[in-house]
């Protein structure tokens, strides 16, 4: 079963946390959802398609996240991978890296879960406008970028879109169907590279930043969206700004420990920012200094 694009649905503009239901349902208390189906993307990544079991949460936009609750285990912040569809269905692609994510990845069709959100600031596609845009996705970072790439690939006008995807190995690549569709659609140039390749791999090998070098048009008038492990985003953001892309035009999606999503628990701070409120998407210009401070 392929990942179904939420066709015909325009994402709502980011208007803050969202109204939620009565008594804070979907915001301070989870809204009830159920798993409609679970699709295994790689050895440790699963995409859950979930449906509201009652009132849906307010619509999210690309780059925003929800706190997904595995009852009895805990909550984690997970980006929207797709949706919501008009009926409230949404998709979340989750990597099993801890107790809660492992529990979520183990949920089968019909299993109940809780959803709070959407929270945070997502990709600012208005700021990108019609410019040439480089999208750099590392590992699971492709997930929060996916809805944004869909929107960019639908843009009118001559602005180029280059999607550069890095992964550990070919087995760790997600959304191969989407990558093919975007490359084939003619609106988007797609390049994929892996850190480690098996014998016989004819694609690119090497760190994803190498792919930035190969785009001759990257410069002052380019915008960039970048998501992946923080060391990767730092390297790529630096490379982009070295090529003349303004730091204010490079957007990154940062990740920190989040317990509440409501800017109350203090865990997701980065300098003067609470990432659940002022992020996770921020401009590189805004966080460059904070990211360069060694946490030793």
């Amino acid at each position, binding site marked *: 079963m392929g990942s179904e694009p939420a066709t015909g649905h325009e994402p709502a503009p980011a208007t803050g946390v969202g109204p939620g239901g009565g008594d804070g349902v979907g915001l301070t208390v989870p809204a009830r959802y159920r798993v409609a189906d679970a699709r295994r993307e790689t050895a440790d990544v699963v995409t859950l398609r979930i449906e509201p079991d009652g009132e849906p949460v307010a619509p999210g936009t690309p780059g925003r996240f929800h706190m997904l609750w595995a009852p009895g285990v805990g909550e984690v912040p997970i980006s929207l991978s797709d949706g919501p569809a008009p009926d409230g269905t949404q998709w979340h692609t989750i990597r099993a890296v801890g107790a809660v994510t492992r529990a979520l990845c183990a949920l089968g069709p019909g299993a109940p879960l809780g959803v709070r959100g959407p929270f945070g600031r997502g990709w600012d596609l208005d700021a990108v406008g019609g410019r040439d845009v480089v999208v750099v996705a590392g590992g699971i970072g492709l997930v929060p970028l996916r809805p944004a790439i869909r929107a960019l690939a639908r843009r009118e006008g001559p602005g180029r879109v280059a999607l550069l995807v890095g992964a550990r190995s070919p087995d760790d690549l997600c959304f191969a169907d989407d990558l093919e569709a975007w490359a084939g659609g003619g609106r988007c140039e797609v390049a994929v590279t892996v850190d480690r390749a098996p014998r016989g791999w004819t694609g690119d090998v090497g760190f994803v930043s190498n792919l930035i070098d190969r785009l001759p048009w990257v410069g002052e008038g380019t915008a960039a969206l970048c998501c992946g492990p923080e060391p*990767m985003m730092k390297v790529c953001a630096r490379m982009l700004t070295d090529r003349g892309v303004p730091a204010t035009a490079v957007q990154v999606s940062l990740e920190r420990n989040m317990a509440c999503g409501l800017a109350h628990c203090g865990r997701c701070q980065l300098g003067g920012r609470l990432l659940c409120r002022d992020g996770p998407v921020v401009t590189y210009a805004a966080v460059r200094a904070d990211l360069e401070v060694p946490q030793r």
Partner: protein
Amino acid sequence: MIRTVRDLLEDHRFFRGLDGERLDLLAGCGRLEVFRPQARLLREGQPADRFFLVRSGRVLVEIDLGPRGVVPVETVGAGDVLGWSWIVPPYRYRFDAVATALTRTITMDGACLRDKCEQDPALGYDLLRRFAGVLAHRLAATRMQLCDVYGYPLAGAPGTGP
């Protein structure tokens, strides 16, 4: 309009900013080549008498680990340069390189260029500087590859419990 080797050299990222006179000189050492997929550009141990400015396509750098087989290490593509062993002694290739897509290059005669650099140290310094840049860039990228940033769990990282 037919584009000469000199035109293509001037376009290539590696020689950006090089003055016209030097470009003319270098053009004399260059020729255009096309490699089909599976064609070998470099072989480990062979005399390093060429380097390649890749115009399009993809070349895979690999290491032959004997019983463990041949391991892909890195690919280079449009705008990249392949082969730096020609400028550092003992002038022998350290890796294998094979095209994995139809690849067009400007192939530079390394031996010829070495002579010209001996005669014109300023040219030599300029070329060395450019290659040093390439090596530094590659080293940094290779280190990131080594760090396995996408890997999980981050065993041994500070703060990880038992």
